[in-house]
């Protein structure tokens, strides 16, 4: 396994740990919001993601997975078949829509994911993949800043709006 593959494997392991922590959070929340169907769906989704990550990691570690980089399901960003298959143009459009959304978002500390212009996972996947692909350090910083990474937007002209600019 190459150093690059090892790094991606570590990324997936971290993602698995995060899914497990999220699941614990949702289960804790379920104690306050009983009989919440949407919450149960979210819990099931995290369980399903955990199973998918575990299977992915197991396959990688046993080296059974061939051509993992060319398989959209196993690209960085998680085992979501519906994400990661977008073309560059689609990814840039998702990011541009999110950048425009940031410019006009209403006040509030926590909002429902349904407010976002695209699925949150799709936005994150698009941003992660563009960070990997992007050669320009300032634009990588802007992309990271759009996710909320500290200092990501500092020194980048235009701030969040710059996420929406096409090269």
């Amino acid at each position, binding site marked *: 396994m190459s150093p690059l593959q090892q790094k*991606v494997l570590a990324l997936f392991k971290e993602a698995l740990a995060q899914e497990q922590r*999220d699941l614990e959070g949702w289960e804790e929340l379920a104690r*306050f919001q009983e009989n919440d169907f949407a919450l149960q769906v979210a819990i099931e989704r995290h369980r399903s993601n955990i199973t998918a990550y575990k299977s992915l990691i197991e396959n990688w570690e046993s080296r059974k997975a061939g051509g993992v980089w060319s398989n959209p399901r196993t690209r960085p960003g998680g085992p979501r078949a519906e994400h990661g298959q977008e073309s560059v143009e689609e990814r840039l459009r998702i990011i541009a829509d999110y950048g425009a959304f940031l410019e006009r978002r*209403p006040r509030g500390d*926590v909002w429902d994911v349904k407010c976002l212009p695209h699925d*949150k996972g799709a936005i994150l996947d698009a941003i992660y993949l563009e960070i*990997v692909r992007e050669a320009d350090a300032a634009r990588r910083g802007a992309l990271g800043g759009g996710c909320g990474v500290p200092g990501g937007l500092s020194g980048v002209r235009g701030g969040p709006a710059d996420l929406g600019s096409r090269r």
Partner: protein
Amino acid sequence: MFLADYQECVGDQPIWALGVDLESADFTSLSVDDQMAKVAGNPGRERYETYSRMAGKERADIYVRVLAAEELGRGMREDKKREIFG
């Protein structure tokens, strides 16, 4: 406020850390005593704290993934990037 602050099952209205929108006319028009009473009596505090913890965890996850993505990008040849990401 960024991606981690968008969570599932929040509903149509946002959750406020102090239970109220401090900039809204409904709040600013109150007397200081009433404002304090409103913030002190925030019934959604526990709910906000639960969501806040989840958002914090997700923020850390996003941070790790962004760093990993940056490292991947630096370590990958341009022709390989084009082959993989289009």
